[in-house]
């Protein structure tokens, strides 16, 4: 299959390109940019007039809910959501049921995800057995089965000796470790940021120190063990400052933030909206402003959806009892564009955080339209928009605090390895 994408505005942040150029795809790869290679005869021509042509998005955290939570979502439903959102690669955290702590589970997941319409799936293996924080998983075996990194989703390792040994062991093989900074005790009954909103609503609070204390532990252990560390879902200005300072002191550390924390604060809990019950909690407006600036300046490496489909039954309960999480695969691009517009950033800078920068964190040669790269491509209408409704979401999870909002950008077409996985709403 040879495809010519013509008349589009080509944006490739990895190469700093923003020009009107055609893209030529052959054998699942980018064959050429600009002029057709010698002898290229397109089987299909896609007219991208008025559209942006960019690398397919890379989402550093999307829960597919398999195995174990098929009543919340399935691979089929969530892969349809990914394609509709222009997402062509995604990392999935290990908090499935059972957790991704055995090579067989990972192989099964990789096998199930092998479909031309499905985004590339990069499992993050469990760092400890059952995420229980006691015994190490067979990381090398899990790596061979397809895990690209190891982590704990948002379950903290309570025993710091176990944590240090897990980091040492991962560092032996140079496996990256992805951890969320979350103290196991501070705010353990908490459901919202410990501040004015939680006080007003009578919700048990989670202080910022629950993040910074755990972050401090992880950063020191990362320095001592030399492990490649990635901090997932930072939520506060204080945590960002610590990461910037750690880098200045020579620690190699990357981090990401979710679309929810980029756009919302604890005030968006409103009248106990259970969709705003998230882990980590939405913090206050100053934290959000710091995260937005940090992502713009590159202090935060990547933006992810933290896609977490939750069934209605688990959300139709009082705020504190509601299962945390929000659906997001289909909102990643629109919320990237919204942020870019509000911060007056170039599309090159903004899209980098969900393409080449995310690929760098993932350690994969993806997120670019360089000749020879995999033809994972997203075509979107930057002047279009979507209204977020239960009906419009392809994800089985209808849970998002952005429900009812109109967001900028509309994906027209998604190509995965040169295969059209999504086109004009399907």
């Amino acid at each position: 299959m040879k495809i010519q994408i013509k008349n589009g505005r080509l944006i490739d942040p990895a190469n700093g390109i923003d020009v009107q150029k055609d893209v030529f795809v052959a054998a699942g790869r980018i064959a050429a940019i600009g002029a057709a290679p010698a002898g290229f005869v397109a089987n299909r021509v896609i007219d991208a007039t008025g559209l942006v042509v960019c690398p397919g998005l890379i989402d550093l955290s999307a829960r597919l809910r398999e195995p174990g939570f098929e009543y919340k979502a399935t691979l089929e439903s969530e892969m349809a959501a990914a394609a509709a959102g222009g997402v062509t690669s995604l990392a999935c955290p290990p908090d499935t049921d059972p957790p991704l702590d055995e090579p067989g589970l990972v192989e099964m997941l990789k096998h199930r995800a092998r479909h031309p319409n499905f985004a590339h799936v990069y499992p993050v293996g469990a760092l400890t057995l059952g995420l229980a924080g006691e015994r190490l998983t067979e990381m090398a075996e899990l790596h061979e089965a397809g895990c690209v990194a190891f982590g704990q989703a948002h379950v903290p390792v309570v025993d710091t000796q176990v944590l240090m040994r897990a980091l040492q062991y991962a560092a032996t093989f140079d496996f990256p470790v992805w951890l969320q900074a979350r103290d196991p005790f501070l705010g353990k009954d908490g459901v919202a940021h410990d501040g004015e909103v939680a006080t007003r609503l009578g919700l048990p609070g989670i202080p910022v120190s629950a993040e910074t204390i755990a972050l401090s532990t992880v950063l020191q252990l990362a320095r001592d063990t030399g492990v490649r560390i990635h901090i997932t879902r930072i939520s506060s200005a204080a945590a960002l400052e610590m990461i910037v300072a750690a880098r200045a002191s020579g620690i190699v550390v990357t981090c990401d933030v979710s679309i929810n924390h980029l756009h919302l604060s604890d005030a968006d809990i409103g009248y106990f909206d259970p969709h705003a019950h998230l882990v980590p909690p939405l913090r206050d407006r100053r934290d959000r402003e710091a995260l937005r600036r940090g992502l713009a300046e590159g202090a935060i490496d990547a933006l992810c959806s933290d896609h977490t489909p939750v069934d209605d039954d688990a959300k139709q309960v009082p705020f504190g009892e509601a299962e945390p999480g929000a659906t997001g695969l289909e909102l990643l691009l629109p919320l990237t564009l919204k942020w870019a517009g509000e911060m007056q950033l170039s599309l090159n800078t903004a899209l980098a955080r969900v393409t080449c920068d995310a690929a760098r964190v993932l350690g994969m040669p993806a997120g670019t339209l360089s000749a020879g790269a995999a033809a994972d491509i997203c075509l979107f209408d930057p002047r279009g928009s979507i209204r977020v409704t239960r009906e419009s979401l392809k994800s089985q999870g209808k849970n998002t605090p952005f429900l009812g909002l109109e967001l900028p950008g509309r994906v027209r077409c998604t190509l995965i390895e040169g295969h059209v996985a999504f086109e004009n709403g399907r």
Partner: protein
Amino acid sequence: MRNPQLTKNGELQHLLTIDGLPREILAAILDTAAPFTEVAEREVKKLPLLRGKSVFNLFFENSTRTRTTFEIAAKRLSADVINLNISTSSTAKGETLLDTVDNLCAMQADMFVVRHASSGAPFLMAQHLAAMGLEHIHVINAGDGRHAHPTQGLLDMYTIRHYKQDFTGLVVAIVGDVLHSRVARSQIHALTTLGVPEVRVIGPKTLIPTDVGKLGVRVFHDMRAGLKDVDVVMMLRLQNERMQGALLPSPQEFFKYYGLTADKLACARPDVIVMHPGPMNRGVEIDSAVADGPHAVILPQVTFGIAVRMAVMSMLAGN
């Protein structure tokens, strides 16, 4: 976002929290409560306002006292009252809060009085009723988690107005476990809305919520300093389980530093009134000599509470 407890016309549809209610509505509830106090002195202590209406007392958390006051209020208004004590164990068996609500709606409920351990549960009910097109069914929050206990806050305001007439020159102190107290939160919002110029909260740092100053109160950790020249002292109940989570060392030490004794009360104005939402822990947060002393208005609070709840129920039923 529209305040879910008000109708499109700004009338009270549900009573979920005092936070965000306009001063006029608070004043109207207190004004309406006044004529209801007189009903208790009649031969027939009943009014026909809620005749033929079904009021469901939905208590997911046990509280005989609060349930009883709502029951009396509803019965004095001639409503049919159905009490449901739903322990958390039966909800753990599978039926959710909203399943229960749907079931009772099918039994033609007109009003729910709900007590729940989770903050926000009555909001969930009100939002659900709106989504089901059942706006004619009213919800009264009888205490949700740490969030709100609006009728308690209102009856406290009624009591203060009864003894002090005017709110605008008062200094009021709320003492004890503010962190876990839905009563304190409702009191704070009611007092600030009604124009009390100085509201203080007094307690150890473990029991004072983060950023409570942003609700418009002054924080004191020294009780004598906090009680200086106050007109009203509102004591809070201290739950015994607070000793477990390392919030306090012992009831004895709490009593020594934050228990209300005649000695500490002497720092307040000579005509100070002392209030308590009950049930009291004598010797923990309040000394018997004060609880039974001349400044205490704790029993009148209970009496006024029925009139205030009658007023709230009547106003909701009429809107």
